């Protein structure tokens, strides 16, 4: 029985490296590893700027993941770790930049554009509805129109 257990352990030890080196720490502390992934997905890799630190395999991203892993182990909170990153790499590392004077356009710009576009749409719709209403002619206008529509008067009008 004991032999079987040892055999299983050995087998497991032999098989684990085959999966991936990155996966190894996950077994050590799944909670910390889940936090690492969550944090890394919020942070931009500065080497390949459209990837998160979680996605990227750039050496810097690997280093930063290790840095985060260590910070989690020392008991730092998510906010503290993010502040650490921002202090060194700026707001740019955050995929969700904080609301402040320099990023205000970023945050409210799309909504402003939406409001402006909706305004233009409403304005145009209203104008179209006004145009659709048949204009009422006064008697003199009606008489003028009829005279203009007479077959012999059409030739004179350009």
């Amino acid at each position, binding site marked *: 029985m004991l032999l079987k257990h040892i055999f299983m352990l050995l087998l497991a030890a032999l098989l684990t490296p085959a999966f991936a080196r990155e996966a190894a720490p996950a077994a050590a502390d799944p909670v910390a590893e889940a936090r690492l992934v969550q944090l890394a997905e919020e942070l931009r890799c*500065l*080497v390949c*700027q459209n990837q998160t630190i979680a996605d990227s395999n750039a*050496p*810097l991203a690997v*280093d*930063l993941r290790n*840095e985060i892993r260590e910070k989690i182990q020392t008991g730092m909170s998510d906010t503290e770790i993010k502040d650490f990153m*921002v*202090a*060194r*790499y*700026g*707001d*740019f590392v955050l995929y969700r930049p904080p609301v402040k004077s320099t990023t205000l356009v970023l945050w409210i710009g799309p909504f402003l554009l939406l409001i402006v576009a909706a305004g233009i749409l409403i304005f145009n719709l209203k104008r179209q509805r006004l145009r659709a209403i048949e204009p009422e002619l006064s008697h003199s206008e009606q008489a003028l129109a009829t005279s203009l529509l007479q077959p012999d008067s059409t030739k004179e009008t350009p």
Partner: protein
Amino acid sequence: MKKAWVLIPLALFLAMLGFLGAGLKLDPREVPSPLIDKPAPAFSLPTLDEPARTLSAADMRGQVWLLNVWASWCGGCREEHSTLVAFSQTRAVPIVGLDYKDQPGDARRWLSDLGNPYVASVVDIDGRTGIEFGVYGVPETFVIDKAGVIRHKQIGPITPDILRDTILPLVKKLNAA
């Protein structure tokens, strides 16, 4: 009145063109460092020449100095190296090298082959000091004042133009202060 309305899409298009044109001149790789006007992170690292000897940021207190992040594997560093070597000969300002995630053997060979512009190079083998400095693309160069405050960060290779127009005037100003 009607004609003015027709011009609006054109005006919007031109405005967009203007923004796009300006965007072409911006380099998205140049991310402004939050470390400007902040004290340079403390480090104490073995020097490349004598691993037994360490150099720390505090050792450079009292003088204006440049911290140039380089590595023998880095193409941009090779590009800027001759500029740095020539500049170091003017003795305008001491340059400390931060040999970033490099093999010391390769680094020493690189310096003996291409010339050594540094008063000393320190070895940041695991890139931890690089992270403290917010390094994300080598080469990077920091201008640090007498009080140990970072005053400027150059991302990417230094050219003679950048030296003449940006770095030298700043060094002169900081030395006079």
